[in-house]
């Protein structure tokens, strides 16, 4: 038996793990079985798969993997990762909500934060109404895999009219001693006219082996709600991350999402926004700083389904070493979505000869009265600017750093939480060392 498993493919191993660990998996059995069946059909994408051709997750997933969700982290280790001093902090370690490491005392009225497991146990109607209703298992193998094999994550609910002033910080940490696959899953529901700021950070702590995290977050935004969402991805060399964010927005809601990819051997972001009613506003910002052999791939979808909505997307990247970055931005404007304004821009700086950038805007427009634009640029650091700075006594290295900061600032300055902006700026500076 054991030799059979060892020589089998990662897909077979995942199916075997699914069959043998059913007791520990989360969610409705039928839902999970369907998801696994869908995963089985799709498989781990290879180079032949159009949506994954620039990111070889299949190569990364060769060899042996464990599915352990051990808790190893101490308070002292987690402390530096709690970089927002004044926030509600949720710690998810190896895919499991850890109350002991979180700071969830004195939650204000209207804010519920608990593990997925507890949300299900308590028969929360909000949870039941929304869980796994938006990320469609048929559209992507990693959505299917996560839905089938997740064990836990966080459920956040912000009740109608509640304004949550302090940010909510979800820290995903991985601590692996053997190569490990985890499937953390979150559900965030913001009710009518409520407001919140949510940060998801992804880190590794004291890891000795590769960790493949297939993380998925669904965000449900009801009418008139305002939500700021931030992702800080900083998993270092041992981190391999596929991060799916599925968002649905209702009438007159405003959603801003910011994705900062600072490190990680492989990062794939699948970000999908569905604008399901009128007068919705959506902002998508992204910054990726890649070096070494990193592979970072941002796939975004903005789906305009109804009239009179605005979306604005800006992704910027600085690519160094032999790293490869991909930006693929799709905008759909459906037949009903007249008077849509949809803008997209992707700008890159390529610092090295060996670095690669693939940029692909895709606009599919089925309405006739819309304003849509997209643009993409890739260039080197401007020699004239470098000379100007050097002519004032600034050395070449610092001149380049100043210019890289300046390039990134357009995205960084959009961070509305000051402590977060400072943290990101500091980490960008470290990256440029």
């Amino acid at each position, binding site marked *: 038996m054991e030799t059979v498993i060892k020589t089998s493919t990662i897909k077979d191993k995942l199916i075997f793990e699914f069959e043998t660990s059913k007791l520990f998996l989360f969610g409705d059995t039928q839902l999970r079985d369907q998801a696994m069946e869908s995963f089985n059909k799709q498989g781990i994408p290879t180079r032949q798969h159009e949506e994954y051709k620039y990111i070889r997750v299949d190569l990364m997933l060769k060899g042996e993997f464990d599915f352990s969700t051990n808790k190893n982290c101490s308070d002292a280790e987690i402390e530096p990762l709690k970089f927002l001093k004044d926030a509600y902090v949720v710690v998810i370690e190896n895919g499991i909500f850890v109350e002991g490491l979180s700071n969830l005392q004195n939650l204000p009225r209207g804010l519920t934060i608990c593990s997925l497991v507890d949300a299900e146990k308590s028969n929360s109607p909000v949870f039941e109404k929304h869980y796994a209703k938006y990320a469609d298992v048929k559209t992507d193998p990693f959505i299917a895999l996560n839905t089938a094999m997740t064990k836990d994550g966080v459920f956040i609910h912000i009740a109608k009219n509640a304004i949550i002033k302090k940010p909510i910080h979800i820290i995903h940490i991985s601590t692996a001693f053997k190569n490990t696959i985890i499937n953390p899953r979150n559900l965030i529901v913001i009710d009518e006219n409520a407001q919140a700021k949510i940060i998801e950070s992804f880190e590794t702590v004291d890891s000795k082996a590769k960790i493949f995290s297939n993380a998925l977050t669904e965000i449900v935004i009801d009418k008139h709600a305002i939500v700021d969402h931030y992702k800080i991805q900083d998993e270092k060399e041992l981190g391999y991350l596929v991060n799916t964010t599925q968002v649905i927005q209702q009438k007159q809601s405003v959603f801003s999402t910011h994705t900062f990819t600072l490190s990680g051997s492989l990062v794939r972001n699948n970000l999908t926004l569905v604008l399901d009613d009128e007068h919705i506003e959506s902002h998508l910002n992204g910054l990726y700083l890649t070096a070494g052999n990193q592979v970072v791939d941002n796939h975004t979808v903005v789906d305009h389904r109804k009239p009179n909505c605005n979306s604005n997307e800006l992704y910027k990247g600085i690519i160094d070493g032999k790293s490869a970055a991909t930006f693929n931005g799709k905008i759909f404007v459906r037949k009903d979505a007249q008077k849509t304004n949809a803008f997209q821009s992707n700008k890159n700086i390529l610092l090295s000869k060996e670095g690669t950038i693939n940029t692909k805007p895709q606009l599919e427009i089925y309405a006739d009265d819309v304003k849509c634009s997209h643009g993409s640029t890739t260039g080197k650091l401007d020699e*004239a*600017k470098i*000379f*100007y*700075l*050097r*002519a*004032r*006594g*600034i*050395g*070449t290295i*610092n*001149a380049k750093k*100043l*210019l890289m*900061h*300046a*390039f*990134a*600032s*357009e995205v960084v300055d959009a961070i509305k939480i000051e402590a977060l902006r400072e943290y990101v700026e500091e980490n960008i500076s470290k990256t440029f060392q």
Partner: protein
Amino acid sequence: MLSIKNLHASIDGKEILKGINLEIKAGEVHAIMGPNGSGKSTLAAVLAGRSEYEITAGEVTYNGIDLLELSAEDRAREGVFLAFQYPIEIPGVSNINFLKTAIGEIRAYKGLEPMTAKDFLIMLKEKQKLVEFDSKLVSRSINEGFSGGEKKRNEIFQMAMLEPKLSILDETDSGLDIDALRIVANGVNKLKSEDNATIIITHYQRLLDYIIPDFVHILYNGKIVKSGLKELALELEEKGYDFIKEVVEA
């Protein structure tokens, strides 16, 4: 302070400077005039350390050191300042951060203690008043969205902050209306001292009504063809650049 001997420079194989000789002492103001394409801006660029130009012959000694051996940043740190003809816009880098970084690096090069934030701000205010530079512009990104005149004034403001020994003003008067010209000239005059020298590169004589040069040189076809006192500029203005051709051919 500056000694240029038989300087030849070319770009893309084309010789632009064909044997420049020039001696400048501390406290002096030298004007270099000449028609378009005579090599004025090339001379400024070569002195500031632009790497596109190839020096094919000659030497430049600045306060006893071989200037051509130094990188552009080290020249600036040694006190050479070029006011650009076309100042660059750098969105995302604030003037303040830029100057703080520049002064920090210059002081480190000289082995001086870093300036305190308080002293820096005091200096910033003082210099900004001295050269009549709008305080709102100080905190904005370098030259971003500035008018032509504001960009030129920012060059003079930077000059005031960095306190150079040798300033080279490359067509600082071009594109300035008479009021802006007066402000820029006032700034330069206030910054003049016994210890520093200024090279003014210009096409027109007008700036020299406001900044009185000690010497005027006429550059033509890569060479200084005539040098004289400030009256030479007036003569040139009166007779036009055709007058140079006569000088050269004579």
